C-alpha cells in the first residue's frame, strides 16, 4: 500500500434550511478543494460520493450529478451511505483506491441540505423499514436515545448537569472563532442550564440540530502534487467500524438493547478507533488534536472513553480540569464541534477531517492548537456506523 496524502480540502459553510440544490453546495466545496490542492478537475481519477438521502434520485446518485457540473470524465463514481459516518466511508474508499494504486488522485465529498423541521421516518413501510416503528408507535426522535444513555451514565458515574452544560460553553467559545460554523454565539453555564429540556437530562443547547453544509477532500499519492501542495497531510489510517454483538448501547432506530453487556458501549466507534490505532501504530496518547462527534454533551464525554483517551467514567474529570481545552493536554473539537455546526449528514465526517487537516496545516487562526503533529477525526452514525481517520504532518 502506498502513502496517501490530503492535498486539498473545501467546505461550504454550515447553515440552516435552504431551497438551493444540494449539488450546488457540493460544487462550492469541491471547487474550494481543487483550488486548495491547486489542481485541475481532470486530475480527479475517482469520485467517492456521500449520498443525500432526502434528494431522491439525484441525491442517491450525488456523485454523478456532481461530476456533470464539473464535466464528465468517465472515472469511477461510487455513491455511499453509512448514516452520519457517510463521509468516513467516502474518504476511506478514496484512500483505499489511491493506496492500492488503482488511482493516483481521488475525490471524496458529501453535501446535505437540512430537512425543514425535524428528522423523521424516511418511509412508511414498517415491514421493510424497521425505523418506522419508533416513529409511528415509539414517539422516539433521535435525542431520546442519547438521553436514555446519558441518564444511565449519570446514575453510574458522577456526571452532573453542570458537566453537560460546560461542554456547550466550550464548544460555543470555539465555534464563535470558526468562520465555517453555523452558530457563533457564546454561552455561559447559567445560560445553558436555563435552556429548556428537550428530553431530560439533555437541554436545548446540549444537543445539535440538523444543518446544511458540504465538504470535499482530495487525496493523492502523486509525488508532484504532494510536493506542490501547501503542506500535504498524511493519512495514517482511515477506518470504518460496525457494532459488536452484545453492545449495551440502545442504537438510534432500535427498540431494544442487551441488558447484559458483552461488548463495549458504542462498539462501532470502539471498532473503528481500534482498527485505526492498529493500522497506524499511533495510539490515543499520540493524538495532539481530536475532533469527536458531540451530537449531544453526552457524546462528548462518552467518546473520550470509547476511543481510549481515558478510562470509563473519567471523561468528566478531563473536562472539568481543562484537559480538553485548546492549550490543554488533549484539545477536543477546536472547530466548535457539531454543537456549533449541526449535523449535515453526508458532509459532517469530511468536515471533521478538514478541521483536523487545517489544524495540522496551522490554518485555524484564533482557534489554532499549538503546533499539532497528529490529529484524529472520529465519527458516529446510527445503527452501528462509525469511522476514524488519523492524520499527521
Amino acid at each position, binding site marked *: 500500500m502506498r502513502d496517501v496524502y490530503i492535498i486539498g480540502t473545501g467546505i461550504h459553510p454550515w447553515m440552516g434550511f435552504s431551497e438551493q440544490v444540494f449539488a450546488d453546495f457540493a460544487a462550492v466545496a469541491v471547487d474550494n478543494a481543487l483550488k486548495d490542492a491547486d489542481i485541475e478537475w481532470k486530475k480527479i481519477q475517482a469520485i467517492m460520493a456521500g449520498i443525500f438521502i432526502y434528494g431522491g434520485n439525484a441525491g442517491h446518485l450525488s456523485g454523478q450529478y456532481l461530476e456533470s457540473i464539473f464535466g464528465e470524465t468517465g472515472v469511477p463514481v461510487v455513491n455511499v451511505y453509512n448514516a452520519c459516518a457517510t463521509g468516513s466511508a467516502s474518504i476511506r474508499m478514496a484512500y483505499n483506491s489511491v493506496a492500492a494504486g488503482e488511482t493516483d488522485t481521488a475525490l471524496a465529498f458529501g453535501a446535505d441540505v437540512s430537512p425543514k*423541521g*425535524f428528522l*423523521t*421516518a424516511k418511509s*412508511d413501510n*414498517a415491514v421493510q423499514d*424497521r425505523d*418506522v*416503528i*419508533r*416513529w*409511528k*408507535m*415509539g*414517539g*422516539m*426522535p433521535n435525542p*431520546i436515545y442519547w*438521553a*436514555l*444513555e446519558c*441518564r*444511565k451514565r449519570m*446514575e453510574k458515574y458522577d456526571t452532573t448537569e453542570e458537566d453537560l452544560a460546560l461542554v456547550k460553553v466550550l464548544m460555543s467559545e470555539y465555534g464563535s472563532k470558526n468562520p465555517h460554523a453555523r452558530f457563533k454565539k457564546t454561552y455561559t453555564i447559567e445560560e445553558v442550564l436555563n435552556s*429548556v*429540556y*428537550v*428530553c*431530560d*437530562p*439533555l437541554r436545548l443547547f446540549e444537543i445539535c440540530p440538523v444543518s446544511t453544509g458540504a465538504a470535499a477532500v482530495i487525496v493523492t499519492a502523486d509525488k508532484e502534487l504532494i510536493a506542490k501542495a501547501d503542506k500535504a497531510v498524511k493519512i495514517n489510517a482511515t477506518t470504518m467500524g460496525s457494532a459488536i*454483538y*452484545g453492545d449495551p448501547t*440502545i442504537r438510534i432506530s*432500535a*427498540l*431494544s*438493547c*442487551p*441488558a*447484559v453487556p458483552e461488548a463495549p458501549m458504542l462498539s462501532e466507534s470502539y471498532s473503528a478507533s481500534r482498527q485505526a490505532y492498529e493500522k497506524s501504530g499511533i495510539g490515543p496518547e499520540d493524538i495532539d488534536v481530536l475532533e469527536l462527534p458531540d451530537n449531544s454533551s453526552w457524546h462528548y464525554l462518552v467518546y473520550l472513553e470509547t476511543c481510549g483517551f481515558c478510562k470509563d467514567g473519567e471523561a468528566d474529570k478531563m473536562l472539568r480540569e481543562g484537559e480538553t481545552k485548546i492549550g490543554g493536554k488533549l484539545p477536543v473539537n477546536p472547530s466548535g464541534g457539531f454543537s456549533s455546526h449541526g449535523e449535515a449528514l453526508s458532509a459532517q465526517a469530511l468536515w471533521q477531517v478538514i478541521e483536523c487537516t487545517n489544524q495540522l496545516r496551522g490554518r485555524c487562526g484564533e482557534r489554532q492548537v499549538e503546533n499539532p503533529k497528529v490529529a484524529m477525526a472520529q465519527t458516529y452514525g446510527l445503527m452501528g456506523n462509525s469511522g476514524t481517520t488519523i492524520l499527521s504532518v
Partner: protein
Amino acid sequence: MENMANKVARIPNLVDWSTGEVRLMSAKCNSCGTYFFPREHYQHRPGCSREGVENVLLPHKGKLASYTIQYYPCPAPFKTEKKITPYGIGLVEFEDEKIQVAGIITDTDLKSLKMGMEMETTILEMFTNEEKQQVVTWAFKAVK
C-alpha cells in the same frame, strides 16, 4: 383488565393482550439464547446456527433501566388524539431475557420515576381509526 376487544395495534406483531395481560411480542433464538424486539430484528451472536427461533411473549413486568422525559411533541408520523407531551420514555429491563425495551411511559407520575422501579407493560390509546377502533401502542406504567 379493561375491554380490549375494540383495540388494534398501529403496527402488528409488537404487542399482545390475548393472554389477559399486555405483553411484548419477542422472539428467542434457542441456539444463541438472544431475545429480539421487534421479533424480526434479529441480533444473533456471531457463529450462531440461527436454528430454532421461536416467538415468545416477554413477561408483563420488568424494571426501569433508564428513562427520559420528552418535552416537545414527537413529529409525524407519530400521532395521538390527546396531547401527551411531556411524556416519559422508559427503557424497561426483562432480567431473565437479558433485554431492555424502550416505550412510552403512561399513567405514571413522571416525578416519581426512579431507576430500578418496577414497571408493567400496558397500552396507550393513540387515536380512533376509520373503523372506529382504538389504535394503540405498547407502553409502560409504574406498578402501583
